[in-house]
């Protein structure tokens, strides 16, 4: 089911959480709302879910205006960063909640819950309480609970934000696979660009309550529309008016017509990747990302001199 937001504005006192935001999410897609904290991404998600009412603008689900409709009647599944588990219910009862309030027959509820617990791989924990589960298990339970009522839209608010790095990586891949099997229109909020790029078909990058750019992961990285986008989706050096990615800085042992000499300030070895911090002739600082082999070939050492050339740069129109 397609999701459309038009000219959405939401203020909290003087703070504009959403400032005239319009968004389109195609049916069946997996979209990431990416941005720094305070950029309005969570507010946008909550407005779509009906947990927050916009001051202005409309929300459409499958072409139907639902702006005035309560969250209860929107048919969206919502997953919270801190799980929002019903602490006094067992895992089974948590997952069954949506079906119980819909007064479905008992046998049907049981079958559906078993199926979901299997799907999220916590079948053995059905009669435990949420407090007895690990963070990753709790979040999978929350996901099963949201999926139980067969939502037309699945919304996830920083779903992996409270989990440790390894669990987070596992769950990402798992979420992507789940989405590929179920094809439910999904939006998830994250402040982690790597997470967004790894799972999403479409990324909506937000800043200061506005959308900076919408596009696929590759598009955002290679054709950033603004300086903010360029610096948010990856590391960047600023050289005067132009911007260059560290891996687009070519290092040479000898000068040719296009290079600038630079002094090596520091070398950081990160396994395969080597970071070379440089001070250019004119005093500007930047860093280059090279492979270990390249670094060895060039015999880079702190205090030495290399010749630097930018393979690809980006200049943004200042408004």
């Amino acid at each position, binding site marked *: 089911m397609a999701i459309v937001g038009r000219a959405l504005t939401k203020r909290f006192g003087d703070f504009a959480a959403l400032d005239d935001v319009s968004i389109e999410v195609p049916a069946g897609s997996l979209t990431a709302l990416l941005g720094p904290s305070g950029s309005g991404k969570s507010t946008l998600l909550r407005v779509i879910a009906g947990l927050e009412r916009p001051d202005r603008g409309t929300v459409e689900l499958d072409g139907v205006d639902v702006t005035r409709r309560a*969250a209860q*009647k929107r*048919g969206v599944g919502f997953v919270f960063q801190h799980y929002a588990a*019903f602490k006094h219910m067992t895992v089974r009862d948590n997952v069954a909640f949506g079906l119980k*309030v819909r007064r479905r027959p008992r046998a049907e509820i049981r079958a559906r819950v078993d199926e979901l617990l299997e799907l999220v791989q916590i079948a053995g924990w059905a009669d435990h309480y949420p407090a007895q589960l690990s963070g990753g298990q709790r979040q999978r339970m929350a996901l099963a609970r949201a999926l*139980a009522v067969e939502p037309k839209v699945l919304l996830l608010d920083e779903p992996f934000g409270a989990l440790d790095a390894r669990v987070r990586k596992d769950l990402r891949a798992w979420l992507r696979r789940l989405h590929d099997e179920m094809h439910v229109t999904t939006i998830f909020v994250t402040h982690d660009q790597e997470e967004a790029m790894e799972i999403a078909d479409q990324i909506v990058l937000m800043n200061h309550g506005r959308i900076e750019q919408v596009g696929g992961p590759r598009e955002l990285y290679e054709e950033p529309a603004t300086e903010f986008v360029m610096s948010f989706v990856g590391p960047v050096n600023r050289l005067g008016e132009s911007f260059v990615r560290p891996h687009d800085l070519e290092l040479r042992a000898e000068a040719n017509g296009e290079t600038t000499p630079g002094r090596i300030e520091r070398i950081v070895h990160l396994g395969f990747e080597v970071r070379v911090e440089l001070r250019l002739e004119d005093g500007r600082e930047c860093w280059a990302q090279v492979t270990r082999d390249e670094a060895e070939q060039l015999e880079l050492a702190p205090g030495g001199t290399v010749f630097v050339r930018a393979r690809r740069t980006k200049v943004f129109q200042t408004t």
Partner: protein
Amino acid sequence: MSRWLLRLAGLSYLLVILAAPVGLVFWKTFEHGFGPAWDAVTTPAAKHALYVTVLIAAIAVPANTIFGIVCAIAIVRRRFPGKGLVNALVDLPLALSPVVVGLAFLLLYGRNGWFGWLGDHGVQVVFALPGMVLVTIFVSLPFVVREVVPVLREIGTEQEQAAATLGASPFQTFRRVTLPAIRWAVAYGVVLTTARALGEFGAVSVISGHVVGKTETMTLHVEERFQSFDYVGAYAASVVLAMLAIATLAAMTLLKPKEETR
């Protein structure tokens, strides 16, 4: 060594302040055996006093429980004009001397009070049960609110929002999510409310008019017996009051499952 001293000091304090007086009452009651004490609490006046006390509590406690839950939810979850005032007013019964409360109700519902006209229509409030119920509700009002408010704050709104997105109506959300989360706070508030309602003396004393066999509660009965130099009667009635309080506490402890006595 100092740890033992501290324990000893704590224990002696509790003994002198709490256990000794209560124990003494029990001892005095049964000083001449069980018979006289039993006779003292089975007189028509004593039985009626017990009935009045229980009746008042049976009205005041449910009323304050429902009000307390609704009020706590309003204070924590809603925004409305005058919320600060409501929050402060809830504590008023704790600050006000019960005698003042009794007097205030007497003035309000008395012959020349604002609601004095009720008496002309056959609704007797002062020197009757309705007035006693009203002042008891007044003095025992803050407990459920004060117990529930911090718990509501602590559980936050996420579980309720999750319930809403899962299709639960506001009432279903309250019954299935909010109420179970605050149930122990409510239970504790109910125990405190009950204890206060059973033990209230000052306000009830002012508004009841002390009509033996009519508007006399257990606490008033204790005083009346004491004034009449019937010490066994007074002590025995006190023991009944104490038993009621202990029974309330015990009921809550029994209801509370073990895993949640953290």
